[in-house]
């Protein structure tokens, strides 16, 4: 009797003592990212980048992803589709063709940020592209981008290939032999050197003088985007350092072969063909 009464009482306590009310729950605004009504550009991005590769392309103004103490402007919507097409045709498809369909999924590039203008530095230089943490690429001067303008296409794709090469060497480092080739020329004030002067020192662009890793990725980007012919011309004009240029070129080719089993020569051909076809057909 006692036990039954006790258990009854205990259940009564358990059931009624604590009355819970559902709080008026409102989710945190913006949790999970900004939302807006999807438009045409959003569907291109979803179909070509988000769904197949989980790569996000941010073209709407998002100051928290950019340098806050610089004046920048967002891209003009009219320019965005051309940029997307260039990224897809000149960077993604060639790598996929030679590295396999899963190559881009393996190297964790997750985000493109598009910015309308360049980022102007106090030193008088402008930044055309940056890569962060091996996963995010910011592309500037979108508002001057036209597919029919070869110089603009080369400039932007040079940036993309440059930044992606950073992601590659941040995953598998470049060969030891690279160290020492041009070490004496690396400087923070690389912008005081013209491209011609840098060429005479055995560096393919003046920016290649910024650091060893910049030298490595500039060489890759130049060989891919400006192309072998342009590279050969630089070598020809600077016979004193021709051997350094050739050594760097060979190191790039073996790096791609050993690290990723990619035929760099074939990659060069694909990238050139893509640029030629986009520029002439637009």
């Amino acid at each position, binding site marked *: 009797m006692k036990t039954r*009464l006790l258990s009854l009482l*205990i259940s009564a306590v358990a059931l*009624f003592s604590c*009355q819970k*009310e559902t709080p*008026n729950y409102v989710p945190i605004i913006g949790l999970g990212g900004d939302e807006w*009504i999807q438009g045409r550009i959003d569907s291109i991005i979803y179909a070509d980048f988000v769904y197949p590769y989980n790569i996000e392309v941010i073209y709407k103004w998002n*100051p928290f992803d950019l340098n806050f103490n610089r004046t920048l402007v*967002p891209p003009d919507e009219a320019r965005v589709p051309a940029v997307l097409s260039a990224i897809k045709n000149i960077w993604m498809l060639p790598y996929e063709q030679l590295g396999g369909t899963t190559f881009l999924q393996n190297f964790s590039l997750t985000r493109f940020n598009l910015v309308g203008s360049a980022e102007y530095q106090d030193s008088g230089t402008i930044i055309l592209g940056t890569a962060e943490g091996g996963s995010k690429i910011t592309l500037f001067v979108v508002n001057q981008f036209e597919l029919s303008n070869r110089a603009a296409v080369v400039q932007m794709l040079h940036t993309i290939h440059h930044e992606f090469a950073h992601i590659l060497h941040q995953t598998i480092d470049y060969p030891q032999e690279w160290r020492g080739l041009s070490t004496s020329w690396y400087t923070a004030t690389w912008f005081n050197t013209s491209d011609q002067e840098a060429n005479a020192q055995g560096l393919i662009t003046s920016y290649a003088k910024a650091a060893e890793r910049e030298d490595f990725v500039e060489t890759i980007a130049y060989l891919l985007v400006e192309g072998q012919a342009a590279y050969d011309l630089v070598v020809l004009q600077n016979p004193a350092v021709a051997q350094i240029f050739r050594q760097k070129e060979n190191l790039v080719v073996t790096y791609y072969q050993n690290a990723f089993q990619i035929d760099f020569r074939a990659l060069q051909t694909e990238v050139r063909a893509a640029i030629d076809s986009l520029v002439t057909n637009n």
Partner: protein
Amino acid sequence: MRILRVTLWMLLLFTSCKKELQDYESPDRRLTELLNSYEEALVNSPDGWIGYLYPKGGGSYTFKFYFDPANRVRMYADFREDYAAAFKESSYRFKVEAVISLYFDTYSYIHELSDPNPAVIQGVVGQGLVSDFEFSVLALSGDTMSLRGNHNESELILVRAQPEQGESYVQTVYTMNEYIRQLDAIPWYFKQLEFAGQTFMLSLNNEIKTFSLYYTSQGQFQSFSTQFIVTDQGIRLREAFTFGGESLSELTDFVFDLAAQTATVRINNSTTALLTTVRDAPIIDPQAAIDFFVNTYIYRSSSGFTINGVTDYYSLREVPSFTSLSYEPRYYIDNYDVLLLNFGVNFYGGVFQSHAGNNGIIVFDNLLGFTGVTPGGVHTNKVVNSATLWVDPQGYYVVKTGNNAYDLVQVANPNIWIRFK
């Protein structure tokens, strides 16, 4: 039995105290409500919103915005004739930060003012005209939304448009702005206005959109300066001027009589005042010439001299790649200054000495010769003619029209003047 007693006590203990939820609204709920009220306000205005933008870098711009529920915005702007006539569509969104912000998040007319590329709007390299395109919403009251730029703290005021302020509103504003420029076509520079029983001299700088009044009170020079925006009727002052119990905040219905050198204008939509011109003894700030001279600044004129009401009398703008006519005080270490025609990467101009007086007059003399690369042909003469006017022996009255902005008016002929900013 003891257990029963204990249990009863415990039952009492657990149920006796009823807790009530505090009357508490979550911050997210309040934010959501606020956000919805902003969105509804912007979208539910069939005639759109008129935007008055005061960039941190100076000037003022009138916009017309039509916001739709799909994050799209159409805008017109008054700083270019084609932008006033045809809209550009782009996107916008609200973002909840510390304060709810309105982002114009893809490129449109308003972004040109912020474009760091100097080729876009001839702003400062890397800064543009120091403006904004993402704004914190400070308040929404009635038909007015006040916003402040997140990057440079420019001010944007959105006012709900009325049915008569339709798609062509900004075009009307543009036309009005051009019309008001006729004030500069009145040959004599010094304009005078009677207001609240006091005589004021007035300047209207259309390039940086400033309105200034100069007067004498108890023998002392006084001045008032503020920015203005252009409406379809005339101009509205950013800050009202009050004097003798009367307030001046809007000037409308400008009617110019160039021959008589006068104009009439309505003040605050009520009284009509007469703007007259004076030839001699203007009200001048005795300190202005010295301030103008000691300031470390390169003064730039976008049009050179105005003579007899003709802006850019010497057609400097026709010099290929013309950018400005600039005066730089204390240019050389040995007391010589320059008035340079800047075109492309070159410059050409006279070398002379400057003497700033404490009577508000600056005199330029000792024209040594010319320096730089000649623009060639007729263009070289334009520089020589400008320099000849510049070294007039009686000098120039200095009139401050804004921050680092000055008008220089010939003492001998007040129908010859030049505007620097």
